[in-house]
C-alpha cells in the first residue's frame, strides 16, 4: 500500500523525466531558440506547424479508427477529399464559405457512420484483412465517384482566411497558416473534451478498448463504433478543407500525399495514441519545413521519402513510436 502511495506522489516527476518528454522539451527549446535567433527559421516553423496540424488531424482520424476497428483506414484521405468537393459544391451553389464548412462537417459525420454501417460492419468479424481490403476498395470507389461527378480538372475555392500576410519584424506569417493552426487545434481539443469528459466519450473509449465488457455494462458497442467512424470523417473533412486552402487548388489527388504524411505522423506517435498522432503530425510538419529550408538537397520531391526516412529512424530506436506503450503480455 505504502509503495503505491509513494509512486503516486512521484508521478509528476517521473512523467517529466520520461525520455519521450525530454526529447519533446529539447525539441521545443530548440525551436524556440531558433525562432528568436532567425526570422526565416521562425517563419518556416510557423508554416510547418500549420502544415503539421493538418497532418496531425488526419493522423488522429487514422488513430481513432485504428483503436476502434484495428485497421488503418486507407480510404481516410479520399473521404476527406470527397468531403472537400462537397464543400466546393455547396459554395458553387452560393452558400457562404463558413456555412458550407460546417455543413460539410455534418455531412462528413453522416458519411463516416454510413461507411461503417454499410461497408465495414458486414465484414468486421470476418478478418482484419477483409476490412483492410474494403478500405482499399473504398479508396478506389470514392476516387472514381469524385472524378465521375466533378471531373479530374483543377477547381478553385475561396480562401477561408483571406490572403493577408502579417509581418512581425522580419517574420512574415500568413493569416491562412494561423487560421489553419487554430482551427485544427480547436477541433482536436473539442474531441479531447468529448472523449475525456462526456459519458458518450467514455462509452466510446470503453467500446474501443473492451467491447465485450462494455456491452455487459450496457454500452451499445456497434453504435459507438459508427460514431467513431463519423468523428474520424469530420477530422478528415477539416484536414481536407485546410489542405485545399493551403494549396489553393482542388483536385482528386488532394489528399493522397497528405494521407501518407498522416500515416507517418500516426506511426511516429505510436498508432494507439491520440496525443501521439497530433504531436507526431506537428513535429513532422515543422521538421520537413526546416529541412527543406536548411538542407539544400531536400527539394519538394524529396519531402515524402525524407519523412519516411525519419519515421524509419525513430522506429529503429523506439519501435512502439514516441507515445506508444510497450505491450507486455503475461503468457
Amino acid at each position: 500500500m505504502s509503495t503505491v502511495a509513494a509512486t503516486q506522489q512521484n508521478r509528476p516527476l517521473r512523467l517529466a523525466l520520461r525520455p519521450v518528454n525530454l526529447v519533446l522539451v529539447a525539441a521545443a527549446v530548440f525551436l524556440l531558440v531558433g525562432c528568436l535567433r532567425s526570422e526565416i527559421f521562425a517563419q518556416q516553423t510557423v508554416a510547418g506547424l500549420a502544415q503539421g496540424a493538418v497532418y496531425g488531424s488526419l493522423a488522429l482520424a487514422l488513430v481513432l479508427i485504428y483503436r476502434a476497428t484495428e485497421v488503418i483506414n486507407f480510404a481516410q484521405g479520399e473521404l476527406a477529399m470527397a468531403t472537400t468537393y462537397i464543400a466546393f459544391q455547396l459554395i458553387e451553389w452560393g452558400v457562404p464559405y463558413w456555412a458550407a464548412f460546417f455543413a460539410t462537417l455534418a455531412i462528413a459525420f453522416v458519411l463516416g457512420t454510413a461507411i461503417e454501417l454499410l461497408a465495414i460492419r458486414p465484414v468486421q468479424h470476418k478478418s482484419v484483412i477483409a476490412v483492410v481490403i474494403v478500405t482499399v476498395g473504398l479508396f478506389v470507389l470514392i476516387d472514381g465517384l469524385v472524378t465521375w461527378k466533378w471531373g479530374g480538372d483543377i477547381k478553385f475555392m475561396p480562401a477561408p482566411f483571406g490572403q493577408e500576410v502579417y509581418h512581425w519584424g522580419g517574420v512574415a506569417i500568413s493569416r491562412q497558416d494561423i487560421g489553419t493552426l487554430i482551427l485544427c487545434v480547436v477541433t482536436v481539443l473539442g474531441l479531447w473534451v468529448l472523449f475525456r469528459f462526456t459519458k458518450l466519450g467514455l462509452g466510446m473509449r470503453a467500446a474501443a478498448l473492451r467491447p465485450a465488457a462494455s456491452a455487459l455494462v450496457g454500452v451499445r458497442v456497434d453504435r459507438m463504433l459508427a460514431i467513431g467512424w463519423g468523428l474520424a470523417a469530420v477530422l478528415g473533412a477539416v484536414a481536407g478543407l485546410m489542405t485545399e486552402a493551403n494549396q489553393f487548388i482542388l483536385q482528386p489527388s488532394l489528399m493522397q500525399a497528405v494521407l501518407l504524411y498522416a500515416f507517418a505522423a500516426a506511426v511516429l506517435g505510436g498508432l494507439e495514441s491520440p496525443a501521439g498522432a497530433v504531436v507526431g503530425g506537428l513535429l513532422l510538419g515543422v521538421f520537413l519545413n526546416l529541412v527543406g529550408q536548411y538542407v539544400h538537397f531536400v527539394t519538394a520531391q524529396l519531402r515524402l521519402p525524407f519523412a519516411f526516412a525519419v519515421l524509419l529512424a525513430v522506429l529503429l530506436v523506439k519501435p512502439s513510436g514516441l507515445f506508444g506503450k510497450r505491450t507486455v503480455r503475461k503468457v
Partner: protein
Amino acid sequence: MTALLELRDVEARYGQVKALHGVSLAVDEGRIVAVLGANGAGKTTTLRAISNTVRRSGEVRFAGRPLGRRGPDGVARLGIAHVPEGRGTFAELTVWENLRLGAYTRRGSLGADRERVLSYFPWLAERRHQEAGTLSGGEQQMLALARAFMQRPRLLLLDEPSLGLAPVLVTEIFRIIRELNEQEGLTVLVVEQNAHLALQVAHSAYVLEVGRVALSGPSAELRAHESVRRSYLGY
C-alpha cells in the same frame, strides 16, 4: 409469487459443442442463489446464456418477461449486472471511470451512489485516478462489485468471485456480497467453485453436472447432502 429470474430448458452451444443441455432454475427476489459445479459443468455458460453472450435456446424470463433476442447491452439496461469471468475490468481506464461505466445505463447524478459505494469500499476514494489495471486481483474484484453496484441492478450475476484470490480476500468479498444483499436487498446469482463458502453465503443453490442441474435446494440441505459433501466439500 413469480421468480425474478427464471430459466426454462435453456440450452447453449459454442459452435458445434453443446455446453448446456436444458438447464432450468429460478432466482427469487432478494435472494442469493449459488450455482456450483466442477470445471466445465456449464456454470459460466449459464450466466452467459442470461446475458446473451453465447448462442442459446430455451426461455429466459426476467421479472416475468422473456428476454427474447436482446443483446448483452439490452440485458444490462433491464437491470441485470454481469460481472464476467476475468472481472470485466477496464484495465486502461481509471478506477473512477470504471465506476462511471458501471452507471452507464443510468441517468442523472451519481453523487449519492458514489458515497454509498465508498461506504463499502472506502479505499476506492484515494485510488480513483489510478489505472484499474494496476490494482491487485482482490482490489479488481472489489472494483468489479463496486462497478456492478453503481448500475443499481435488480439482479447481479457474479462469475467466480473467488478465482485467483487469497482466502482472506475471498471471505471478505463474500461478506460484502452478503452485506449488499441484506442491506440493499440486492438479488444475486453467483457461480462458484468454492462450494464450502458459497453454501455459507447463499440461501439456496443448484449443482450443475455436465450441463444439467443435478441437484438443487436450500443451502443447509445441500450441505448435508451425501454426494455434495463428498464431491464438492471434501469431507
